[in-house]
């Protein structure tokens, strides 16, 4: 399966890094789009055929939790797997991400290998 990925993060540097990691990962990447917050992310999702989302949590306008809530509430988008990227791996946060419907989470700092492993695990699930 070819991956059409949406990266949502308010940090331009992190978007560049994630796109670079995914591009060099050896994963079957067809396309990588990006967005700087949840509002822009939803717009991208409604106009492009995305099949994997990587999203940050703390973002202006619409944060990652609200973004995922809206994705999972939309019958056209809810099947898209979501990996949430966080600096907070507290039990409370992880539980909340699961309740939101995120299929996985990646805790910063991470290595390229950790990103690939997370995506592969999701693809084979």
């Amino acid at each position, binding site marked *: 399966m070819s991956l059409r990925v949406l990266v949502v993060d308010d940090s331009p*540097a992190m978007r560049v890094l994630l796109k*670079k990691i995914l591009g060099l990962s050896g994963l079957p990447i067809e396309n990588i789009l990006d967005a700087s917050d949840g509002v822009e992310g939803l717009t991208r999702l409604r106009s492009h055929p995305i099949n994997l989302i990587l999203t940050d949590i703390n973002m202006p306008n619409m944060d990652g939790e609200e973004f995922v809530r809206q994705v999972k509430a939309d019958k056209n988008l809810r099947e898209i797997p979501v990996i949430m990227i966080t*600096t*907070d791996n*507290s039990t*409370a946060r992880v539980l909340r991400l699961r309740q939101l419907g995120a299929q996985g989470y990646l805790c*910063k*700092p991470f290595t390229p290998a950790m990103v690939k492993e997370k995506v592969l695990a999701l693809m084979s699930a």
Partner: protein
Amino acid sequence: MIAEQMASKLRDAASSVLEMMFAAPVLADQEFPPADVTGPILVALEFVGQVKGTFALAAGAEPARQLALGFMGMNTSEHLDRQQVIEVLGELANMLCGHFLGQLNYHESFQLSTPKEVTLESLTHEGHSYQRTVHLESGALSMQVAIHA
């Protein structure tokens, strides 16, 4: 004792984050303040959770540029403008702060504000503050965490 433990956690956070995501191992560390820094860039963010406070990060212009290049996977000869360097330093502050708070074993989740460039004068000194400077191949990087409540 608490100050020593906090400083140690700051150093551990720096080691993990800088080695994993910036290819910049920590060579040594010392108490704050750092050695003379030319044209420092200072970024800070606020955190709210079981405790709240401010996390600040300072680096000289050249070490900051080298860190940004490392983070973006760019060559040392490539150009980055000041705004791009500040964005990467802000991302580094976000990760360092998150890693530091994660070591405090709090059960509640926390929120981090978007990192911003600040001036030394604007940093708050209320509450308890802990500092550490780490030395990288490209220069020094200083961290300060102020816990307000």
